[in-house]
């Protein structure tokens, strides 16, 4: 049986097709937004938003609401909160992000444990459940992808400017604060949909590895964004097929494929710049 046959057989399953569509949509979102996260050096903030979102998941679960709704609410609120702190203090707000990170997790864990009954599916928010993606999940992903694409297309030049030099952008009277907060809301939404694929614990990897790999070879933001999307697709596709054939958890395999590719690319770059004598 050839490889193409194998792949065809794999995607004959509905849940595998859904997983592939989810990977493609999330790849677009995380490639575009991840590039902004990496270039603005707010990776830690992205992690903070992801973990704060767990508080919303726990609360929604306790009150019998859709956990995704809680996740969206908490991630947007924590994103805006951290954004306001950044804009007010103008310093790296590492400590505060760390505090928010932990509070979110603590609130989530407490409310989940207060909720009676079987809660195995809550693990899926921590580690991802690409194979259990529903039609509603796909709709949310498509909506977020559309929002992010419009956001980047409309504000590309301004986003590049605030990422490269916030002070100069302010002196040019660009609405830096508004743009920055919008960017953080996009990061919040990205975190929520990427959580379905790799889980909130590994969201940071999904956001940073493709842009970091792209940045090894490309020296402008537009190129980095496009290559990041392509790489996200590649990593997810390969990871998905591998996880199915090896019967391993999909999110983790995708992250490992991405991380190993990054390391290989970085090594190749290093060797090609400094060739052995």
């Amino acid at each position, binding site marked *: 049986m050839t490889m193409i046959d194998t792949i065809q057989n794999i995607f004959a399953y509905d849940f595998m097709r859904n997983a592939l569509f989810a990977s493609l949509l999330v790849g677009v979102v995380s490639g575009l937004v991840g590039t902004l996260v990496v270039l603005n050096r707010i990776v830690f903030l992205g992690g903070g938003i992801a973990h704060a979102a767990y508080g919303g998941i726990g609360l929604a679960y306790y009150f019998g609401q859709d956990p995704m709704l809680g996740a969206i609410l908490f991630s947007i609120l924590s994103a805006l909160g951290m954004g306001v702190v950044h804009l007010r203090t103008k310093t790296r707000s590492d400590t505060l992000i760390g505090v928010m990170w932990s509070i979110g997790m603590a609130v989530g864990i407490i409310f989940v444990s207060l909720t009676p009954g079987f809660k195995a599916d809550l693990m899926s928010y921590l580690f991802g459940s690409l194979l259990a993606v529903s039609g509603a999940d796909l709709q949310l992903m498509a909506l977020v992808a559309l929002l992010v694409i419009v956001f980047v297309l409309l504000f590309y*030049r301004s986003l590049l400017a605030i990422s490269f030099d916030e002070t100069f952008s302010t002196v040019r009277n660009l609405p830096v604060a508004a743009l920055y907060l919008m960017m953080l809301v996009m990061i919040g939404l990205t975190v929520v949909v990427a959580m379905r694929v790799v889980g909130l614990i590994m969201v940071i990897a999904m956001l940073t590895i493709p842009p970091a790999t792209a940045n090894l070879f490309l020296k402008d933001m537009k190129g980095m964004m496009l290559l990041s999307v392509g790489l996200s697709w590649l990593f997810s596709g390969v990871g998905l097929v591998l996880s199915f054939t090896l019967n391993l958890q999909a999110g983790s395999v995708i992250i490992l494929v991405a991380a190993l590719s990054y390391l290989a690319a970085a090594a190749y770059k290093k060797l090609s710049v400094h060739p052995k004598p």
Partner: protein
Amino acid sequence: MTGQAVIELKDVWAGYESDRVLEAVNFRMEAGDYVGLIGPNGGGKTTLIKVILGLIKPERGSVQVMGVSPEKGRHFIGYVPQIQPGDKAFPIKVWDVVSMGRLKPHLLQNLHLSDSDKNIVERSLRQMDILDLAKRSINELSGGQRQRVTIARALAAEPKILMLDEPTSSVDSRSSSQMYDLLAELNQSISILLISHDLTAISTYVKTIGCVNRRLVYSGQKEITSEMLGTAYECPVDLVAHGLPHRVLPSHQEENDHD
């Protein structure tokens, strides 16, 4: 004092929380001026820049740029920040950096660069003699080339005032003297404010010199006055120790040929 003030500070006190950095600063710069402000590190140079750009509000006193508040007037300023070594990693091309000079205050005006904006960006690149570098990534440039990119970006804003922060910090002496020749040329149509801790570098080229160290001593002359050297501010004493160029000494006024 007949010309129009492009920058005017009256009794400005400013600082951060409990740490006051500037006290009772009065400063007036007129159209066509070329002012060099010197001062030791930590003497309030950066705070002064931020106050003029409206990035921090003074506790007391008034600041005007082109006769209005800094927030309204700062778009007339072509700001040339000090080059930070950390910026190097950012993946961006020279053309895109200089295009930032054409940013407009409304997000939807920045959808793309208009043809007239493109012409201005190209002109600024040509003015700084770096048009051939337009497609290069800034990571590949030398310190002197990067400095030219930053000045070209400021020029693309078509400024009335050029404000430079430590312009020679990452530049070798040959390209720094070329840069000062260019600035002298630009001064024919633009007022220039240059802020640095390096007196030797700027004193040859500017028209007037002042000194910042908590307070600001500026009398619109190209001399280091005894007041500047006064123990009250201990201002350029450490600079003098590195060798004060005799051009700025009072006895050499005949060399003020830039006036």
